[in-house]
């Protein structure tokens, strides 16, 4: 046994003096205050963008539960984003805007479909599992395209879910202008999207809740069972665990959490599209986890924010049609150099923090430089981007290479 290489699941409990704790706390506070400053400075688009990051962080955390702690490499996690969004759309189309009802429907719908997909795909493993989860999600995607009442291919506009408590006699609505900005009179408040803060905070609270829940879950008896089943399924059966039902439960829980992300995403976009369930979306959620660090929970959050930031920059600098051609190779490079993810790079001792910050800044600067360079070479990219579907092939191929690189490393370490 190559003992030295074994993948160790990092301890989630970090002490107060640990840089990881400090960074996470700073991150949580910055994110909590972000809408206030964002609105004050008139950057409503940024607030909306960060809200989207938080929503995808929820999806990435839920995937990390089954991928990082259960070894279930689901390439179809976007299915539950779509299902959560459809729950909003279907209800709102028929005039039911009640958010509580929609949320329950999103959770139930995602759980049921996850139960169905999991029940079948968990009978396989390895590449077969990846392909079956991918196939089911593509089926849902094409089902969405063919659902004409809900816009089919084009999608449809949806209304914000209504979380008012008027029924209880309380004149208080969550989806109206919740944000403090409303009461202020300076210029920043004239921006039209004042209630962007409501969806932001809904996502923020849901993210904190799902991180907390997942953290508790993986440390519980249930968590030990799915982690054991990832490490050594044969042994788990021999010591008396019917692992199938535990893994299926984890798969359903992850689907339910991701359904909440889908519910929030429909509210964020105020739009439904079957594209939410596209394989590209599933791949993105997985890449978020891999970049941030699989099996760390917090890493999924870091990865979601990081990947969407890079995508945003690429779209801005390189161009809407072919930014994926740059992202693909970039992902492969990142996975090659930070195989265990960003979270695992954070030092455990305070005295190593300055060096880490310097290195991190250098990497960021390097990436920014790379993106700038790519934007300068856009004529070449433009030609390549005109080849039909080439950007998609590039990103798909890159995702597969990144996946293969990530999991080959694990196998070598006697982990899978």
């Amino acid at each position, binding site marked *: 046994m190559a003992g030295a290489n074994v993948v160790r699941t990092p301890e989630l409990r970090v002490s107060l003096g640990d840089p990881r704790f400090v960074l996470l706390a700073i991150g949580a506070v910055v994110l909590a205050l972000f809408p206030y400053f964002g609105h004050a400075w008139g950057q409503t688009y940024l607030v909306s963008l960060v809200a989207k990051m938080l929503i995808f962080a929820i999806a990435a955390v839920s995937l990390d539960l089954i991928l990082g702690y259960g070894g279930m490499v689901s390439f179809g996690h976007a299915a539950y984003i779509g299902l959560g969004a459809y729950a909003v759309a279907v209800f709102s189309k028929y005039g039911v805007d009640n958010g509580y009802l929609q949320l329950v429907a999103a959770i139930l719908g995602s759980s049921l479909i996850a139960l169905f997909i999991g029940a079948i795909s968990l009978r396989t493993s390895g590449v077969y599992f990846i392909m079956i989860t991918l196939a089911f999600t593509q089926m849902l995607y094409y089902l969405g395209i063919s659902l004409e009442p809900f816009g089919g291919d084009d999608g449809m506009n949806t209304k914000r879910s209504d979380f008012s408590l008027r029924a209880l006699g309380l004149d208080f609505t969550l989806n109206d202008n919740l944000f403090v900005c409303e009461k202020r009179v300076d210029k920043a408040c004239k921006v039209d999207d004042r209630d962007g803060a409501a969806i932001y905070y809904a996502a923020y609270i849901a993210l904190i809740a799902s991180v907390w829940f997942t953290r508790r879950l993986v440390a519980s008896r*249930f968590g*030990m069972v799915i982690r054991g089943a990832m*490490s050594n399924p*044969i042994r788990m059966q021999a010591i008396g665990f019917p692992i199938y039902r535990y893994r299926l439960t984890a798969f359903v829980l992850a689907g339910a959490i991701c359904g909440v992300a889908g519910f929030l995403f429909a509210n964020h976009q105020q739009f439904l599209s079957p594209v939410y369930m596209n394989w590209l979306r599933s791949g993105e959620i997985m890449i978020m986890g891999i970049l941030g660090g699989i099996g760390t929970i917090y890493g999924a959050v870091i990865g979601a924010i990081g990947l969407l930031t890079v995508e945003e920059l690429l779209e801005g600098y390189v161009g809407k049609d072919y930014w994926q051609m740059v992202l693909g190779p970039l992902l492969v490079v990142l996975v090659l150099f930070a195989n265990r993810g960003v979270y695992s790079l954070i030092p455990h001792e305070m005295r190593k923090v300055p060096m880490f910050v310097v290195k991190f800044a250098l990497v960021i600067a390097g990436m920014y430089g790379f993106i700038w360079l790519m934007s300068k070479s856009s004529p070449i990219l433009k030609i390549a981007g005109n080849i039909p579907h080439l950007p998609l092939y590039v990103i798909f191929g890159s995702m597969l290479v990144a996946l293969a690189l990530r999991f080959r490393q694990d196998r070598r370490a006697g982990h899978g």
Partner: protein
Amino acid sequence: MAEIILGIERLTKRFGGLTATNDLSLNVEKGEVHAIIGPNGAGKTTLIAQLSGLLAPDSGRILFKGQDITALPAHTRSALGLARSFQVTSIFLNFTAEDNVALAVQAHAGHSFRFVKPARAQAALREPARQALASVGLEHRAAVVAADLSHGEQRQLEIAMAIATNPTLLLLDEPMAGMGPEESTRMVEVLKKFKGTHTLLLIEHDMDAVFKLADRITVLVYGTAIATGTPDAIRANPEVKRAYLGDEA
């Protein structure tokens, strides 16, 4: 006659043209250490796999405490009190030694659909786990990640995990595999401690160890038991000498 814990009746398993288990019948009595020896390819590991439920036999029956378990899955057999260790060390490498054993304890402490309380803080799992570690002499290594244990220690951990499930019958698939003489001696001492309190079915290549430990020995050749008896009787058996001991030992 002593109570029969495990009854194997006319068990047969074929892989294509190869008959790995051939019409094999065998009884293991309560409290005994029963060793199965045989040359390479005699079908020893195939037999263990069928007993623990990882392979289904083509015909024949397996009775455990009088109950027919031939069709039961592995985890149910474990719940009934049948534990096994593996020839190739099979532990949770990324968990600590204590985590490994605590997981085995947890498997027999009701269902595990418990989502909130941290498992590592539960004395009901940790206390029996520490006892099982102590019974194999690993208590001082409890906090070490299993991957960092020596080969011999990993083999001891295997036994601790099997013991922690409170089994009636312990199937040991070559517990001394890959061990040096010193480690092997330590393992014999560990297993001797379970003599009398547990029933052991032992598959082993290490002849010294087998003759030190076993109450009865069955010799397996080409999937068939050619002799069963006390160590002395087996030593004296001319057929066994010719088939096995004469060639290899």
